[in-house]
């Protein structure tokens, strides 16, 4: 199973690319934990997670071919 993750804003600085993929995460909480382990700086950053373009308000199950987007807030005007 493969979950595609696309990354926006300043999160790309930390992750180092705009897209990555995982095969071993079952839900968004696991994904967050995995990302925090791989990129410790991420654990201190607030960002919205969308699964298939819908913002996840709670832990959300992930299945094969899901597209996850990580969107940080920014404030420039």
């Amino acid at each position, binding site marked *: 199973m493969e979950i595609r993750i696309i990354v926006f804003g300043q999160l790309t600085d*930390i992750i180092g690319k705009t897209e990555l993929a995982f095969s071993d995460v079952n839900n968004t909480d696991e994904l967050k934990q995995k990302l925090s382990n791989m990129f410790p700086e991420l654990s201190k950053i607030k960002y919205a997670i969308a699964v298939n373009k819908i913002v996840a308000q709670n832990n959300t199950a992930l299945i094969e071919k899901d597209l996850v987007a990580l969107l940080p807030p920014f404030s420039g005007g």
Partner: protein
Amino acid sequence: MNSTNKYKRYQRQILLHEFGEAAQEKLQNAKVLVIGAGGLGCPALQYLAAAGVGTIGIVDFDVVDISNLQRQILYTVEDIGKSKAETAVSKLAALNPEIQIRSFNFQITNENALQIISDFDLVIDGSDNFPTRYLVNDACVILDKPLVYGAVLRFEGQVGVFNLADKHSNIKTNYRDLFPESPDSTSKLSCNEVGVLGVLPGIIGTMQATEAIKIIAGVGQVLANKIISYNALSNSFYDFEITPAKNETITFPKNENEFLNFNYEWFCKSQSIKGEISISEFDALRRIEKITIIDVREMAELPLVDEFLYIHIPLVNFEKFISTIPQENKIVIFCRSGKRSLKALEILNKKLPNCIAFSLAGGIESWKINNSNS
């Protein structure tokens, strides 16, 4: 303006089958408030004025700086040092003398926001900082006004419509449903620090004006309960559907009284910089969210504290009992004067690096003095 001139001025949009004279009439009767006459505000204001929005309000306390001219296209070299709000009014009046334009040449705050916004039908957020964004969002929720949101950073922009039900549901979402928690220091990168492509706020601000005009005219599909992320480098758009937040532990002002008492500067303060917290910040934090408070003094040390609940772990045993500290909330450590709590904070930051923790500056002694005075 007589009706022939009016027809001529707006002819190109009145001709549009979906628009017509009825929508033009709606624009003329509409009142739109633009917060911030900067990179986003300038293009939004120009198109709203050109399109014939009958009343436009502009909130900005800043003056024009040469570094603004790269993207804030209402201003010229001659305007440097002048008020943005007032300069914008004169430029827009020259563009369309038939509309009413009001300037609010001061900062929007808890004290004035509700009064200013209540005079308008719709708000465009073109501000450049998080405290203002949360403040404007909450005010619009309390007053039930549609809010067209926009934000930019480097080559990326976000645009969306809050507090407006889409055609299929009665659900209204807002900025707090997307970003309920206060931003961290890295989110607070501003365009001053990391830059922005000048044309990007032009694109996003123009999209904000487009959404405002669609909402007023009642045409097309509005970005209600949605946010679009645009990347100028990759020429890509990505949309996010927003659903109502379910996290009830996050508190935000829901009525006028709570709004007046909410400290937006504190809420948006950098919380990844670990260190001291002032007495007033500590009291504000206690009010707005559930926190864990730890006393690291010796047992029975004075003064006694019965004003709030706390855990007692003397500094000598702090490391030994560190695992008993709950980690889900922000932590504030105190001692008598604020010195031992800094040592405890150092240990905590080392052992539990993911916690957000502070040491109470001046200690509980200062807190007691401060609170007995007030």
